[in-house]
C-alpha cells in the first residue's frame, strides 16, 4: 500500500526524517559557500556552487514534504503534536518559498561574482527558519513519540479521542456506553476519555478489553500499540501487557496496567469506571 510505503513501514523507519537530511544539509552548505564567496571574492566557483546546492535543496525538500504530510495525517486529531506539526509544516513551506525566490534572484545574476546582499540575507533567514522548524520536528519525535514504533501496528490507530463529558461532577457508578461495538475491528483500538480518565479499548477476536491509555514506563500511548496474542505492546519501548489482567509480560515497564470491565449490550460497548 502506497501510504504504508510513504510512512516507511516496510523499512521500520519513517521516510520523512530520513529525507530531510538532504535539504537541511544542502541549504546549510549553500550558506557556507556564500560566506566563503564573501571571504574569497576572487574565487569564481563558490557562488555558482551555492546556487546549485540551493537548487538541489529545493528539489529534495519537495520530495521530503510528501511523506511528511502523510505522517501528519495520521496524528490523532486531539494530540498536542498535531498543532506542532502544522507549525512545522507552515515554517517549512515558508522556507521553501523563500528559497524558491532566492534561486530566482540568483539565476538572473549568476555571474561568478560575490553573492548579492538580498540573496545572502534570504539564505540567512532560510537557515534561521529551518533551525526553528527542524527543532519543532525533532520534538514531535523525541518528546511526543510520533512515528515511533508505528510500523509494528498493523491496523490504523484511533483518529480521535472519544470524549464523554456530562454525567455530573461525581464519577458514575453505572457502566457508561462509549461506542458502537461494530466500530471496532479485530486488532483495532479506541481512545476514550471520561471526565479526566483516559482509557484504551482494544478488540481481539470477538473479545473487548479496556485498560489505561498510558504505559507506566514512560507514559507512551497504548491505544497506538500492537494488539497481538492477548497482549498490548507499547509503541515506544515495547513494554508488553496482558490485555485481560494488565500484568507486565515484558519490560521495561515494571508495574501492570489498570484494567476496566467491558460489556457488550445491544451492539454497544459499556465500561465500568470505578467510582472515586
Amino acid at each position, binding site marked *: 500500500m502506497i501510504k504504508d510505503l510513504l510512512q516507511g513501514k516496510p523499512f521500520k523507519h519513517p521516510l520523512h526524517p530520513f529525507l530531510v537530511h538532504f535539504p537541511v544539509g544542502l541549504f546549510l552548505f549553500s550558506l557556507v559557500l556564500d560566506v566563503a564567496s564573501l571571504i574569497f571574492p576572487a574565487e569564481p566557483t563558490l557562488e555558482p556552487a551555492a546556487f546549485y546546492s540551493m537548487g538541489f535543496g529545493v528539489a529534495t525538500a519537495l520530495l521530503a514534504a510528501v511523506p511528511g504530510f502523510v505522517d501528519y495525517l495520521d496524528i490523532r486529531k486531539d494530540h498536542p503534536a498535531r498543532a506542532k506539526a502544522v507549525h512545522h509544516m507552515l515554517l517549512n513551506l515558508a522556507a521553501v518559498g523563500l528559497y524558491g525566490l532566492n534561486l530566482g534572484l540568483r539565476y538572473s545574476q549568476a555571474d561568478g561574482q560575490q553573492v548579492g546582499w538580498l540573496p545572502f540575507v534570504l539564505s540567512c533567514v532560510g537557515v534561521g527558519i529551518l533551525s526553528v522548524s527542524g527543532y519543532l520536528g525533532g520534538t514531535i519525535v523525541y518528546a511526543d513519540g510520533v512515528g515511533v514504533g508505528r510500523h509494528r501496528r498493523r491496523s490504523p490507530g484511533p483518529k480521535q479521542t472519544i470524549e464523554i463529558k456530562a454525567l455530573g461532577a461525581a464519577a458514575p457508578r453505572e457502566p457508561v456506553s462509549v461506542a458502537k461495538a461494530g466500530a471496532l475491528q479485530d486488532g483495532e483500538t479506541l481512545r476514550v476519555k471520561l471526565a479526566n480518565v483516559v482509557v484504551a479499548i482494544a478488540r481481539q477476536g470477538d473479545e473487548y478489553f479496556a485498560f489505561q491509555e498510558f504505559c507506566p514506563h514512560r507514559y507512551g500511548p497504548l491505544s497506538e500499540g500492537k494488539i497481538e496474542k492477548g497482549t498490548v505492546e507499547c509503541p515506544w519501548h515495547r513494554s508488553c501487557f496482558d490485555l485481560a489482567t494488565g500484568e507486565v509480560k515484558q519490560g521495561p515497564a*515494571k508495574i501492570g496496567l489498570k484494567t476496566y470491565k467491558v460489556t457488550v449490550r445491544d451492539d454497544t460497548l459499556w465500561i465500568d469506571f470505578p467510582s472515586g
Partner: protein
Amino acid sequence: MFGLLAALIAVPTGVLDWAEVKREKPAWKWGLYHMMVNLIVIILYGMNLGLRLGSYREAAGVGQAPLFFSALGTLLLLVSSYLGGRMVYDYGIGIARHSKEKWRKVAEEGGARLPPEKREEQA
C-alpha cells in the same frame, strides 16, 4: 572538510546517548555497529580529504581514488544512518527522555496506575 568538522562535533553526543542504553538491550549492539561504521566513514573521509588536498585548485575534475572514497563513504553513511534511525523509531532510544515529566502529569490526570516517582529510568 565541513562535513568532517560537523561529524566530530556529533560524536560525543552520540557516545553519551549510547552510554545510556543498557548493555543487555538489542539497541546496544545496534549502537555499537552504528558507531563503528561511522568511525570508518570518518577515517575514509579524512583520507579522502588528504588525497584531494594537493590538487583541489586544479580544474581537472576529481580523481578516481577520491571519487571511489566518496562513493564508499556515502554508502556506509546510508547504512549507519539507517542503523541510527532504527534505534530511534524501532527501539525508542531517546524517546520521551526529556518529556517524561510532562507525560507523567498527563497520565496522572488520565487516571493511570503509575510507578512511584523515583530515580532516573532508562529505556
